[in-house]
């Protein structure tokens, strides 16, 4: 009564052990509508039942910037030779993007356990949609940053935009996002079983900010320390962005190259771990 199927006839074969590395971009592409809807959901649901709504997007980097500006005046922090307000605002804008991408993707499995437990779709849809919605947020926050930037550009002679590097900025932003994605996905995978990592993430990220050129620019460190610190993609990328915008900061093609390599390695490794985790995380979460 039933014909025999050969293996090639099946659309899906599931075995206990999956492939070592599987980045099924085709499948992810097939679910692009879901990614778009998730982004929409993130953006619309986030500010429901708030009075200020999207204004919060501006307040967060603004207040942090004001605090650091105040501190830098009091404690004589160096800000290259940029106006502190601009220096911190640029730093905060990109840092917030990185940090939000990182923290939001780092609880992919735990936050979505109820959905993941009921339906299959490519799990990467969730972190990818987080990156995209934060990209939109970054765009909006950049508006504020650019206003301040425009003001200083018009009223002072301190800023010397590097147009070649400015053209690279979209690439740099994507690089930063991918780095956050890689780290976030890695953390999301390990926290499903061992929650210790979510504690580590909480304060680790705060500490990380201080060695990423957001508060203390690369130029404040000794040459040796700087060489090591610049291995951190967040620092080399934000320094490059800052250099592109203002002509000040520490830009080195070598370190940018290192950043690309690091990001690729982190992504590769974390997707490998993610693949292993997504198969059985419902049993461990």
């Amino acid at each position, binding site marked *: 009564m039933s014909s025999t199927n050969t293996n090639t006839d099946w659309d899906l074969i599931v*075995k206990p052990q999956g492939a070592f590395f599987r980045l099924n971009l085709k499948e992810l592409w097939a679910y692009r509508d879901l990614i778009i809807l*998730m982004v929409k959901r993130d953006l619309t649901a986030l500010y429901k039942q708030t009075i200020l709504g999207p204004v919060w997007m501006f307040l967060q980097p603004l207040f942090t910037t004001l605090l650091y500006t105040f501190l830098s005046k009091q404690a004589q922090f160096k800000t290259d030779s940029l106006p502190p307000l601009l220096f911190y605002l640029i730093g905060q804008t990109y840092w917030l993007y990185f940090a939000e991408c990182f923290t939001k993707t780092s609880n992919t499995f735990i936050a979505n356990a109820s959905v993941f437990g009921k339906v299959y779709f490519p799990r990467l849809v969730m972190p990818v949609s987080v990156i995209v919605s934060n990209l939109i947020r970054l765009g909006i926050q950049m508006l504020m940053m650019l206003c301040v930037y425009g003001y200083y550009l018009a009223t002072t002679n301190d800023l010397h935009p590097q147009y070649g590097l400015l053209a690279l900025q979209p690439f740099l932003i994507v690089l930063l996002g991918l780095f956050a994605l890689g780290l976030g996905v890695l953390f999301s995978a390990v926290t499903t079983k061992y929650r210790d990592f979510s504690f580590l993430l909480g304060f680790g990220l705060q500490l990380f900010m201080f060695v990423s050129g957001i508060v203390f620019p690369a130029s404040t460190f000794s040459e040796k320390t700087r060489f090591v610190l610049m291995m951190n993609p967040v620092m080399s990328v934000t320094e490059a962005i800052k250099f592109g915008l203002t002509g000040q900061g520490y830009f080195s093609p070598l370190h940018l190259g290192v950043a690309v390599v690091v990001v690729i390695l982190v992504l590769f490794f974390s997707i490998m771990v993610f693949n292993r985790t997504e198969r059985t995380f419902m049993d461990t979460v």
Partner: protein
Amino acid sequence: MSRKVIEITQLGKQYRLGQVGTSTLSDDFKRWLYRVRGKEDPFLKVGETNDRTKKGNSEYVWALRDINFSVNQGEVVGIIGKNGAGKSTLLKILSRTTTPTTGEYKIKGRVASLLEVGTGFHPDLSGRENVFLNGAIMGMSKAEIRRQFDAIVDFSGVERYIDTPVKRYSSGMYVRLAFAVAAHLEPEILIVDEVLAVGDQEFQDKCLGKMKSVSGEGRTVLFVSHNMAAVKSLCKRTIVMRNGQVHFDGGVTEGIAKYLEALNPSLNNGTIEPHHRTINAGNVFIRHLKLENEEFSNGNSIYFNNPVHISMDIAFEKDLNDVLLDARISSNDGIELFHSMTLYGSDLLQVKKGMLKARVILENRLQPGKYFISLGVHLSDGATQDYLENVLEINVLNVTNTSEKGLIYDFKLGYARMNANWQITN
């Protein structure tokens, strides 16, 4: 000539008891050591079948073990079994939310799993937005949803609220909308887990009708339910799960019987203990009781309309010459519904000291549901000798074993049916 669309071979799923997750750090390490040396996972050899009522010796338990079956295109398979039999684990694995520990399965065609309605609904978004979101989660493209949108809203019957956030919905409306989305998926294989238990009667009928029509279109359906009437009316084949294994695979009527048999194996066939006796005068003791319906040799379920057979052994400690036996049926909310005694059919019984065997066949005019039977031995002056209140519990099913139609009575009006003579003319 139908072709296989699902093939499952030697499928197993192991869990670790007591703790979160499938293993501990030290076991993880041991596993890793074995894997590095290229050996099989050492913990796959341990573990026992999954009977939640018995205390086991192993920390590891097989929620599923050695599952083998295949499903052909267009088949509607009911998967039934007690709680914890492994039904949901099986569906979880088939819908790819977790992976098996051993074995493999193959699937042909697009699968939609409905383990829950309204997965991914966001309370702050409107009904419309949620339809799109939920549809996309289930694997539909935006264009598909847009095409089906009107049909979905129509099916759900919440048109008026479609632009209101779903957190303002009544729970019924929420479920209606959610199921409506699911019902308009067009997968080749549909996996459904007990979602019909929600919504009002009208909506449940609608859902059942939809599932029937889905199967009519040549799609394959795997259907987990505890609603035997639904299983009987939808499925041609049942798989009965028991302790993580396939206990029976075959026709519906037989499958349901196997399932019901397993439901309550300890009941209604046994020796009467002192605590069963409500009243006893010290002369007469009902010693042993048996519910004799042959379909359910060790269960308490009775098909709709089938009479209830009870046999009992009664010990008389002395001669009595004005004895009568009685039986009562009460509803599970305590109302006495029927009463029968030997005096209705014959005179008072004259009994010598010793054992007496009695057998009673009670006409079953009960509506589906749970009922209790009390049995008693009395003297003609009303002195009760032995009385076992609510000693038997019976479960009248909403299906018969004779009708092909299956669904007889899925709602409850009163406790019993009356005999009536309907005459219909043009």
